[in-house]
């Protein structure tokens, strides 16, 4: 009898607790934001840093009571889909987002995936934030894609100009993986370097994306003896090996890329050989990071065990989506309202010190505001950490 009473009490307690928990969860309406990108294979680092940035920020928002848009407070739910860097999978991912009634999606991470999902996004009223550079995605008549970072044709010229003025760089060589993104970035880099008057001494050396030893790849490039070696569109997995091979082959010049990198990965893979390596980052260095950025890094690290410096750029997309929806709550279901708001939207940038703003840019490059204004922070790697070389803005 006593045991039966105990079981009844326990069951009642469990039921009550479950009811309380579900009531607590149901307090806020759920706002789903999608992510379609690569979270497996050699480029997994790109997509996982996206996904984890979104999840860390969403958990933070939910933990602190939700996100108020208009009169409603929302809990943020991130719905993720691994496209495996395959355009067909990216389409399937975007279709899944449409089926779930999601109107705002971050990704895809690469050019062909971003191009492939365009019809699905446009026909289902989805705004998406790719990390891909083809201008056709952002120029009219296209209007649903918003570039989530600084493109290489924007950062490249700034870096080359700096190196010409400060380091006396005159000749340049380009190396790229044999894939659409790195190859198109190489083309953009060659055009920019040529326009600035640099001499391109090697521009046709490529490597398979699964290459693990770059000494044979770089040997012919080293014969050209460039002042600057540009690793076009290099993935964080390949960058340390390329740097290491180049230095071991006796290369003394400057090495740079226009993609975001991780200091820890460079330290482990190339050590001191990576000193002087130039890359692009977000609000990454201590002098630029606001207290909110510092807290984001702490929360991300606590949640996933280790921070990824690529998230310095990837942290922005979700913030832009939420802040824009806050500026016009009707945009939650109406992407046309979102597009209209983009033209005048402005909010403080919570991740950077100073008076930096969140706003949409891209008039110079795309003729319409279809790019998030991420600070163009050019970093140089030095002894295990990034130092800010210079900061610029994209119009």
């Amino acid at each position: 009898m006593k045991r039966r009473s105990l079981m009844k009490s326990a069951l009642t307690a469990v039921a009550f607790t479950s009811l309380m928990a579900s009531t607590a969860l149901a307090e806020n309406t759920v706002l789903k934001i999608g992510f379609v990108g690569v979270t497996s294979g050699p480029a997994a680092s790109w997509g996982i840093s996206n996904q984890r940035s979104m999840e860390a920020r969403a958990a933070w928002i939910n933990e602190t009571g939700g996100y108020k848009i208009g009169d409603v407070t929302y809990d943020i739910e991130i719905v993720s889909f691994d496209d495996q860097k395959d355009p067909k999978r990216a389409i399937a991912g975007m279709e899944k987002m449409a089926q779930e009634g999601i109107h705002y999606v971050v990704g895809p991470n690469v050019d062909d995936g971003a191009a492939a999902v365009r019809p699905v996004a446009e026909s289902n009223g989805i705004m998406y934030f790719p990390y891909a550079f083809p201008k056709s995605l952002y120029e009219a008549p296209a209007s649903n894609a918003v570039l989530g970072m600084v493109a290489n044709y924007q950062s490249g010229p700034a870096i080359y100009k700096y190196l010409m003025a400060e380091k006396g760089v005159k000749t340049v060589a380009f190396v790229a993986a044999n894939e659409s993104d790195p190859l198109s970035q190489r083309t953009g880099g060659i055009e920019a370097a040529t326009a600035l008057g640099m001499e391109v001494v090697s521009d046709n050396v490529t490597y398979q994306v699964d290459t693990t030893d770059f000494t044979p790849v770089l040997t012919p490039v080293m014969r050209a003896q460039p002042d600057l070696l540009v690793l076009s569109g290099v993935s964080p997995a390949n960058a340390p090996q390329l740097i290491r091979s180049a230095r071991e082959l006796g290369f003394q010049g400057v090495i740079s890329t226009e993609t975001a990198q991780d200091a820890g990965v460079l330290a482990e893979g190339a050590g001191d050989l990576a000193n002087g390596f130039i890359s692009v980052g977000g609000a990454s260095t201590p002098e630029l990071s606001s207290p909110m950025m510092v807290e984001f890094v702490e929360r991300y690290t606590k949640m996933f065990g280790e921070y990824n410096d690529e998230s310095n750029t990837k942290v922005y997309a979700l913030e832009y989506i939420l802040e824009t929806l806050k500026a016009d709550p009707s945009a939650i279901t109406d992407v046309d309202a979102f597009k209209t708001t983009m033209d005048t939207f402005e909010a403080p940038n919570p991740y950077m010190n100073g008076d930096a703003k969140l706003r949409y840019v891209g008039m110079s490059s795309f003729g319409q505001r279809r790019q998030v204004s991420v600070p163009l922070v050019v970093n140089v790697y030095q002894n295990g950490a990034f130092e800010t070389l210079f900061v610029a803005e994209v119009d």
Partner: protein
Amino acid sequence: MEQILANGVYLGSQYAMIALGLTLIFALMNVLNFAHGQMYVIGGFVTYTFYGQWGVPFVLALVMSCVTLAILGALIERYLFAPVIKGSAREESTMLLAAGIAFFLDAVILLVFGEKQRGVPKIIDGVFNYDFKLIMPYDRILICFLAILSIVAFIGLMQYTKTGRALRALAQDRTAAQLMGVNVDRYSMIGFALGAMLAGLVGGLLVTITGVNLGMGGPTSIKAFMMVMIGGAGVISGAIWGGIILGFMEAIGLALLYQYGDITYLLIFVSLMIFLAIRPQGLMGKPWG
């Protein structure tokens, strides 16, 4: 030319080591182990953890990679492949199982080691430079030497030990070996463990040069299959020759054809297709299997 030869020997030796484990497992059990690349990656991560993270001496870390993979291989054979082979006459059952294990190991690697590229401190500093005609970092020379030494040791094991003779007997004719008193179940497990151990060994060796990341498993398996196909499936010497040939083709292609873009692998694949059309059993395989 000196650089091409050196790159060819270096690439060939590491490729041969990767292919050895795969072909051993195929020879013994007729299993196409699609998870071989993932085993290689785990081997790299184990050495990374022991040597790179915890500061354990490199040789000891390498031993840990071998032991970990040998145990993993033995468990996989005993509890996954052996029951499937006994319960299903269809070869695709083991292929599907191997593919499933590959996906599973990928997920485990992501959970345990994360998505980032990992690297370890160099085991030897310095670069051998012969008048800029031949440049080779000392650590690559050492790894090349260790890879060749491991291949020789493996051949010795297969030729001159009781275990090696039993494994060869098993590879030649499973039924006849059983009739001669070879404990087929036991040696199948030992053989699979040995194959997995070789993957772990090469993963541990190469993490000092190439680093390691989550996505390396699939491409490594594909390259290993190419080498096995070139040399002849299930033939140990074939895997070695397959690795050497692929290594030299890559070194020559990258050195001489770079001005035409990335056509080295295109030509390698075309050559492989033509070669297999003429000699489907590979260089050293037998037409009857």
